[in-house]
């Protein structure tokens, strides 16, 4: 049934439909609507789950680690500083191979204190062993969240479903909310491959010597690779039931494109319009939307981008002292392809600043008019500012 709902509600509906057993979360703007809605579901009985109130995000994830170890389906949601506070336990979750699903609402890190969208919070956790899926709209968010449970449980790795603050989390759109029966067909009850069992007591996560540690890390790496292979299977299965399909990456008009813009999140939708306009004017331009950031679909990306003349990556994030993070990853993916196109890295929309079609067109023009990028990071729309520290 189609309903006009927020991105946050789309997440909550998906969690309800996934029949999650344990939710533990600590509220933080702009994630709050997700957990508020879930807490309503728990109290009105539409979701038969325990909602654990905790005193911090660190505890929220710690509680889920315990719950997931006992073999139940678990969910949390957070944002920005909250995710940063979870950092230690993000590593623990993947190391312990627990299929916890999290909704991560991209929000800028402070100071300066800022509640608007910015991808640096989730991208800074790229090495924690979590699968990361960046969503573009409400429908994709709902569908991806349902799929996330299946993916996580198949590879025994945690999944982060990432959505932009406000542009997605607080924006109302028509979203098709599937029937419970259909979701049940897609997502069977969780059958853990290991769990705490009082009849067969054991301890997880104990001391591991240099003799075995590497093998354990490699096993996680293999799990990540498996996720890359399994995601298309999950998409097929999903499309078979719901007649909708998403993908790890989505090329738009890329076949003959000379310049390809690379985006993630809600900027993608704006970019789709630009591409359509430019194509009408005969410009050979394409768009590559990246949804799956971890594991990074290197092969698929190479296939799309390597033939282009130029690549322009739009990053709503920044790694200080380096460049935009998607740009780094794209460069790394291409560097071993002989004669690969130059990669322009654009920084735009940090801290929730709007990335309009004009901004994107400017990026396209700048890419078109330059042979090679002058810098690894090109900041878009910077204003002249005065040093505030020395104000008397």
């Amino acid at each position: 049934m189609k309903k006009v709902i927020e991105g946050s509600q789309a997440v909550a509906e998906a969690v309800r439909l996934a029949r999650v057993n344990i939710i533990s979360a600590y509220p933080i703007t702009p994630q709050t609507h997700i957990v508020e809605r879930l807490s309503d579901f728990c109290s009105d009985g539409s979701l038969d789950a325990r909602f654990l109130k905790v005193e911090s995000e660190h505890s929220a994830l710690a509680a889920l680690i315990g719950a997931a170890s006992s073999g139940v389906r678990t969910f949390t949601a957070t944002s920005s500083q909250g995710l940063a506070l979870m950092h230690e336990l993000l590593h623990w979750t993947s190391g312990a191979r627990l299929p916890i699903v999290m909704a991560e609402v991209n929000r800028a890190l402070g100071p300066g204190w800022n509640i608007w969208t910015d991808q640096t919070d989730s991208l800074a956790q790229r090495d924690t062993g979590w699968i990361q899926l960046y969503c573009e709209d409400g429908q994709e968010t709902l569908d991806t969240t349902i799929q996330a449970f299946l993916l996580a449980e198949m590879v025994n790795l945690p999944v982060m479903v990432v959505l932009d603050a406000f542009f997605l989390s607080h924006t109302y759109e028509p979203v098709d909310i599937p029937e419970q029966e259909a979701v049940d067909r897609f997502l069977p009850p969780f059958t853990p491959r290991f769990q705490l069992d009082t009849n067969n007591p054991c301890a997880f996560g104990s001391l591991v010597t240099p003799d075995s540690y590497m093998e354990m890390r490699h096993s996680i790496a293999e799990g990540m690779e498996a996720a890359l292979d399994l995601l298309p299977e999950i998409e097929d299965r999903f499309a078979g039931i719901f007649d909708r399909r998403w993908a790890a990456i989505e090329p738009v008009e890329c076949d003959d494109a000379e310049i390809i813009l690379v985006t993630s999140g809600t900027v993608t939708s704006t970019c789709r319009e630009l591409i359509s306009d430019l194509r009408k004017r005969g410009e050979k331009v394409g768009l590559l939307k990246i949804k799956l950031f971890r594991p990074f679909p290197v092969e698929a990306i190479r296939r799309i981008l390597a033939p282009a003349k130029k690549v322009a990556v739009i990053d709503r994030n920044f790694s200080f002292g380096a460049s935009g993070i998607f740009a780094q990853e794209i460069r790394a993916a291409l560097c071993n392809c002989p004669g690969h196109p130059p990669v322009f890295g654009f920084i735009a929309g940090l801290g929730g600043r709007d990335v309009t079609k004009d901004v994107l067109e400017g990026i396209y023009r700048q890419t078109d008019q330059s042979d090679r990028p002058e810098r690894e990071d090109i900041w878009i729309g910077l204003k002249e500012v005065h040093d505030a520290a020395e104000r008397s």
Partner: protein
Amino acid sequence: MDKKTEATQKVSLFIPRSYLTTEGNKTGSWRFLRPRYEEKTAPCSVSCPAAEDIGMIQMLTTQGSFKDAWETILRENPFPGVCGRVCFHPCEGVCNRAEFDEAVAIHVIERFLANTAHRNAFTPEVERLAPKKQNIAVIGAGPGGLSAAYFLALLGYKVDVFEGAGEPGGVLRWGIPSYRLPLAILKEEIRRIEEIGVRIQTGKPLVHRDLDTLGKEYNALFLACGHGRSMALGIPGEELEGVQDGLSFLRGIREGRMSKFSGRVAVIGGGNAAIDVARSIIRLGGKALIIYRRRRQDMPAFGEEIEMALDEGVELRELRAPVSIRKAGGNLALEVRSMKIVGTDTDGRAHIEPEEGKPEEIKISHLVAAIGERAEEPWYEPPDEGTGVLHLSHCVMAHKPGGTLVYGGDLTNGIKSVAHAVASGKEAALALDSFFTEGIESVQPRLAACRAGAGPALSMEIYTQGPRSDRSTHVVTYDEINADYFQFDPRVKQPRLLREERSRTFGEVSLKISANLAIRETERCFNCGLCNQCDNCYLFCPDLAVKKDSEALGRHIDYDYCKGCGICAVECPRNALILEEEDYEEGH
């Protein structure tokens, strides 16, 4: 589903998993500090002359175990109903809770428990020792004598009490007015003393030589004859009609001989007797004027009593001393001289001298002199020195070849209070028991060993090696309480008769409180040094080293796994745990 299972089986899953129990890792070997359950002594129980186990009484009340709480009082004091009403509750003055918000209303709870026992006709179950062969005569059935008889009977002795008056009770019967102590309460508590085998013979005034006769019949005598006679003012006119002494006045009321008053009655004195007289005069329709030669803050009467008296309309003239009384028409004229303060006496009270100038004359209808009391007979008084004379904290023991005589009650106590009289009777009983069982040399060491904290109050339960004797004598201070576990809560207000009603009746001023209020009040108690099974240690121990069991405190520490982190001791709200350095031998 099949597909999912199939796919899942392909995914590598290599994780650390151990089937070894961690019990093999005896983390107790890391310990250099050792926590230990050690109950300690609450300051209230130390300042109570009767050494009542107040922290425990409050805890039992909180748990709704009113009978157990009442019996806990009875272990140390046969007069909960009396003391819940007339005691000046020094316990509340040292209550650690006062540093947090307000002291626990201990006396209100004592009164509540006595009332509850009365209403439910509880039969106390207080431990009594096996009968012993000695018999003891107690002379004087006041609170001191009756307490001695009570504790001696609990210790297994045969006790006879000889009382000169027609009814037992002493000052409780004849001195304290019924608005403070209803007769029924006193009678019931005396009846309970009789029920454990004490024989009280009333209407048997003794003369000095009777001591010799009794000395032959009994193995020991306890003499607590109290202050039976008021001191004279020693001024002209004292013999006039309309002038009487405080003790006779109060006795007259208790005997039902007192008629209505009208006009102004002067009350000379500043002790509790003077206050009782003045408040009684108000109830009899008169106007009471207390004349005191020093200031209000120097009065020996208990502050709360003075406050109530003034509230009821008693007037107070400070720094006035009576000079003479004369007839003036149908009334009396009292001449008083102003006094001035010149320095401070050794006891901290003002040192006074008469002022120059003409005395002031006050018209009065009657005068009651309550400036102090003394023993009725010189032989009631204990000897000062001499061979075999042992000065104990609340008694004087005269041990001679001809017989053993212990003096107690008001005549041996610095502070004349019912609780001190109880203390004196208890000390006499314990001293005699030590003497009979282990000889005269054992008296002082055995008394020293049963004091609450550093003393001087003595505990019967500690003396008889009850559970309380396991506690440390360390007196808990406020700093040692983890106040984070308590919330501010105002002290219960003792409900009282309206002032208007008080002036018309000898009915009891203090009213009862409900069980709900009592429990709420006792919940305020820190139970300093006592374990109330709050389970903080159990919940906080990171090593699960606090084990529940059926021992007294319901728990013990498993030292195989206790790392000595000390969290249990810090999180114990009441200081019932102690943290000590491990005494590892060299090379351990």
